[in-house]
């Protein structure tokens, strides 16, 4: 009886090991964001996201599309990268085993806030995308404007308009 239970235990462990191995075996690409520490900036900045993709499988991988995915940590919603000028994917025709390929996206910080960034790669014919680790960064608001600078215009313009119109109207010769 002891031998039977031992056999069942060995067999079930083998099943678990083979299942998890299958999990490990299907991740054939590794994605890393290299410029994680350099992404913090101010609205209006243009920043380059540097990443790399490595083929960690034993076979060459072909027809890979990589792109960025950005989400807003405050609203918990994805961000339309077209607004940030970084919506385009990068295509890699083929990557050999152990080969590393650099990836770059120029991104325009258009809105202040806290964001999470990942790089995603999709291999043709493979339904499961590969995802990098998440990088967090902050975009600070750009403050060129000081209400005190706008105040002279806000107060002065209506006064100038009234004076100007009054001067024009008063030039007319009318007997009352």
């Amino acid at each position, binding site marked *: 009886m002891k031998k039977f239970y031992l056999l069942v235990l060995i067999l079930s462990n083998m099943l678990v090991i083979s299942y998890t191995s299958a999990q490990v075996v299907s991740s054939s690409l590794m994605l890393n964001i290299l410029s994680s520490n350099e992404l913090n900036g101010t609205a209006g900045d243009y920043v380059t996201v540097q990443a790399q993709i490595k083929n960690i499988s034993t076979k060459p991988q072909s027809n890979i599309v990589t792109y960025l995915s950005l989400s807003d940590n405050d609203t918990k919603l994805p961000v339309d990268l077209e607004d940030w000028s970084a919506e385009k994917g990068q295509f890699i025709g083929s990557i050999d085993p152990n080969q590393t390929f650099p990836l770059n996206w120029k991104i325009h910080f258009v809105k202040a806030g806290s964001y999470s960034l990942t790089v995603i790669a999709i291999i043709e014919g493979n339904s499961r995308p590969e995802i990098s680790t998440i990088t967090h960064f902050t975009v600070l608001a750009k403050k060129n404007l000081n209400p005190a600078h706008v105040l002279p215009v806000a107060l002065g313009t209506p006064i100038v308009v009234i004076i100007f119109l009054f001067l024009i109207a008063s030039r007319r*010769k*009318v*007997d*009352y």
Partner: protein
Amino acid sequence: MNNIISAKNITKSYGPQLAVDNLTLEIKEGEFFGFLGPNGAGKTTTIRMLTGILKPSKGEISLQGQSQNGNNNNAGAIGVVPESRGFYEWMTGKEYLEFFAELYNVVDVEKTVSKLLNQVGLTSRANSTIKTYSRGMKQRLGLARALVNSPKILFLDEPTLGLDPQGQEDIQKLLKNLNQQGVTIFYSSHLLTEVSDLCTRIAIINRGSLVAEGSMAELQSQMSTPGQSLKDIFLSLTKE
């Protein structure tokens, strides 16, 4: 003398309603021509066709030998005091005349306007807004506007309507002067005494049709009873 105004068989209908029916008028240069008719007879419609504001449904109109069918090709040669008496009330009398003088490309606008204001007796109110003018003053201003381009032909549609006797007298004097200077005047009115005093020839229209035309003597000779007044002639020709 040449015909300065020629209207041949002009007709104007608005749908089934006939406003002017086959009217023919020939007016010679320098005439003071009276155009009489009861209310709704078609006087204003006729004037609007002659001045180019309305296009006749049928017929031909020419002024100074030039066609005048629904266009204002002769605008430079005619002056009109129309039935509609609208003014730009925010303007002063002077500004109003200056505006029209510019539209007519008058050469010396300031001099012309000053002369006209003097002619119609509005010099003292030249810089007052038209809004402050009396009815009579507006009538005189309308006449001044009609004279801004020194027209050869003057069309007047009830120019003394609503004026007091003094006002009527002033306008009549002015018109006589103009006629003596060679301006042809087409004078539409239903005030018979005025027409008989001023006009050398008279036409009477009723329900869109010409019922009589000629000098006072000629009109009297057409009647069965000789020596009738214009009032009697008018009433007998236009009675229902």
